[in-house]
């Protein structure tokens, strides 16, 4: 029985307490689930709440299991499957360092303009671009820069939320 592998973006609201990220990561490694991307930061200082955005993949049964296992962790408030629950926006931020001179340098700058990337550092021989976009856009940009003197890229991983007026 071949089952389709689905990619899901899951948002998790947790108590911002020591060990909570270790619990989430331990769950994924211990049970052999995939993590394609994971981001976490405090979103509510007064109530000490953090929001984790996870991108994972698996069969439907595995994805359901991941959500149930996350929900079962004691410090977890809510688990939302943004992929299942209707339209959502997903963004990543990347810092991309490119080194080069002459025509390659000009081409890098031209492409950065097309991708609406910002120059956040410049020297005579290098740029650091800041780019915000979907994972695919960041992939495309980094792919192009690879041919124009890419030194390194640093990416935040996906943050996401549902479209429309209602919140988490």
């Amino acid at each position: 029985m071949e089952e389709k592998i689905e990619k899901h973006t899951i948002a998790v609201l947790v108590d911002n307490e020591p060990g909570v990220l270790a619990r989430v990561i331990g769950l994924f490694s211990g049970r052999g689930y995939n993590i394609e991307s994971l981001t976490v930061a405090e979103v509510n200082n007064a109530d000490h709440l953090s929001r984790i955005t996870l991108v994972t993949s698996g069969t439907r049964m595995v994805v359901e299991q991941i959500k149930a296992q996350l929900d079962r962790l004691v410090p977890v408030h809510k688990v939302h499957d943004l992929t299942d629950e209707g339209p959502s926006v997903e963004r990543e931020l990347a810092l991309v360092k490119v080194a080069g001179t002459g025509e390659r340098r000009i081409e890098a700058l031209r492409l950065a303009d097309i991708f609406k990337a910002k120059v956040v550092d410049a020297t005579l021989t290098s740029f650091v671009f800041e780019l915000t976009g979907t994972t695919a856009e960041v992939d495309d940009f980094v792919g192009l820069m690879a041919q124009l003197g890419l030194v390194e890229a640093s990416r935040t991983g996906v943050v996401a939320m549902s479209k429309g007026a209602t919140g988490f």
Partner: protein
Amino acid sequence: MPEQKLTGAQIVIKALKDQGVDIIFGYPGGAVLPIYDAIFQQNDIKHILVRHEQAAVHAAEGYARSTGKVGCVLVTSGPGATNAVTGLLDALCDSIPLVCLSGQVPTHLIGNDAFQEADTTGITRPCTKHNYLVKDVNQLARTMHEAFYVARSGRPGPVLVDIPKDVQFADGTYIPPTEVKHKTYRPQVKPEIARVEEAIELIATAKRPIFYTGGGVVNAGPIAAKLLTQFVKMTGFPITSTLMGLGAFPASDPQWLGMLGMHGTYEANLAMYNCDVMINIGARFDDRVTGKLSEFAPGSKKIHVDIDPSSINKNVAVDIPIVGDAGAVLEDMIRIWKARQKRADQSALKEWWGQVEGWRARNCLNYNRTEAVIKPQYALERLREALRGKNHYVTTEVGQHQMWAAQFLPFDEPNRWMTSGGLGTMGYGLPAAIGAQLAHPDAIVVDVSGEASFLMNMQEIGTAVQYRAPVKIFILNNKYMGMVRQWQELLHGSRYSNSYSEALPDFVKLAESWGCVGLRATTVAEVDEVIEKMLAVTDRPCIIDIAVDPKENCFPMIPGGKAHNEILFGPEDSPSDATPEDGMVLV
């Protein structure tokens, strides 16, 4: 009234009292001395000094499982905590409510590789339901109460609270349990009624139904077991149970088919294989139960009641999932069944029972009765007869003797049977028996054991002697790690690699060296005699060494990777064609 300050250690003791703890199992050490000092200065909580921290946890499990209360453990930092890890995971796998308190090095030394320092919360994170490191004495009372709440709520489990030594000395404020409400943890207890109604409609149309129940019913309390019995009686359906669920439905009832799974009965496994509606209450489709997943109860509709949503659709996809406490769901099921005036399809049920009785007539637990050697099954049959009608509790170690005990010892009530099911921890039975005995001083508590398992925690005889716990250690001594030997025989060409119990002690002399009673049976005629003598001992532990047939194997058996209808009945069934290659890799 001015706010009274207590030390952290006093807060711990006060919280334990307010949580209704009367016994705590533990072992002292540098990092818990303030708590031990606080224990010394009070009389409400009895401390039981074990001989190894693993045993403290198993004893607390035995206490918890036999009373329905939360078991409590106290260990020191570093090795104290790491020794407790096996017990904690055992409790997690079998959903036993425990609170384990561990000492930790002072907060300013954490992370400095201090003497007896371990990252206890890190190590125990995947071995507990939840854990805490308390760095502020003013959070200690709240954390203690939360720990008890988390341990007993929803699917029960072990919770660890790690308390640095300086926090135990520091002065802080105590708050009572009534003032503590957990921020997030609210397990769903009441089921969704629409789902229960759907289940009732399906149950009423079943032609070949079966109840498959598990430890969840036991954990839901004696009332849940009564409701289960009532509902099973109302429907007239056959019922089987997992190893952990034994006793929730009376084994003496004709609707009872015995345990299912790898060493379950033929009738239970074939009824599962052929059923059209399966009603799973509080069991988790464990691999010991399902066998080959693709051929597990093919063509059946499945209802699954579980308090843990992550148990649902984990191994087996079900048709009607119901999240809730087994007792609450059964109550609703009975109410709706009555309100809708449901009645099982009597002619279909009659036919189904005819089939089931045909399987039962196969008498799958039969064994080669002989006068020449003590068969382990015979010893257990005699034990069963001797215990009949007496107030008794049984624990086991892990292996062949455990499966035979599950097959041959009947339980008519929940909380009477304690065994390490999920983790399969050898050495569980003796400390668990001590925990059960201390909770029920007047009952007979028997640890059905093998000689190899017994050796794993035999130091606990000392604990039993010290607290005059008259546990009976009933050793079925076959001089082998029997289950290992059985698998080596079936799967590894009878190459008995390291499964022989070499250099065994004289168990009778061992008992005597501790001031206990030691008894031995080497012939069939002696079995009844030693059981009678064993039951007469009420003031000290008793070790019974029964020399059983070393070659006996545990049947029926569904080899790994096989379906429920591919059962082996005994040595006459060829093991070589029984196990496919892909089954060999399974445990």
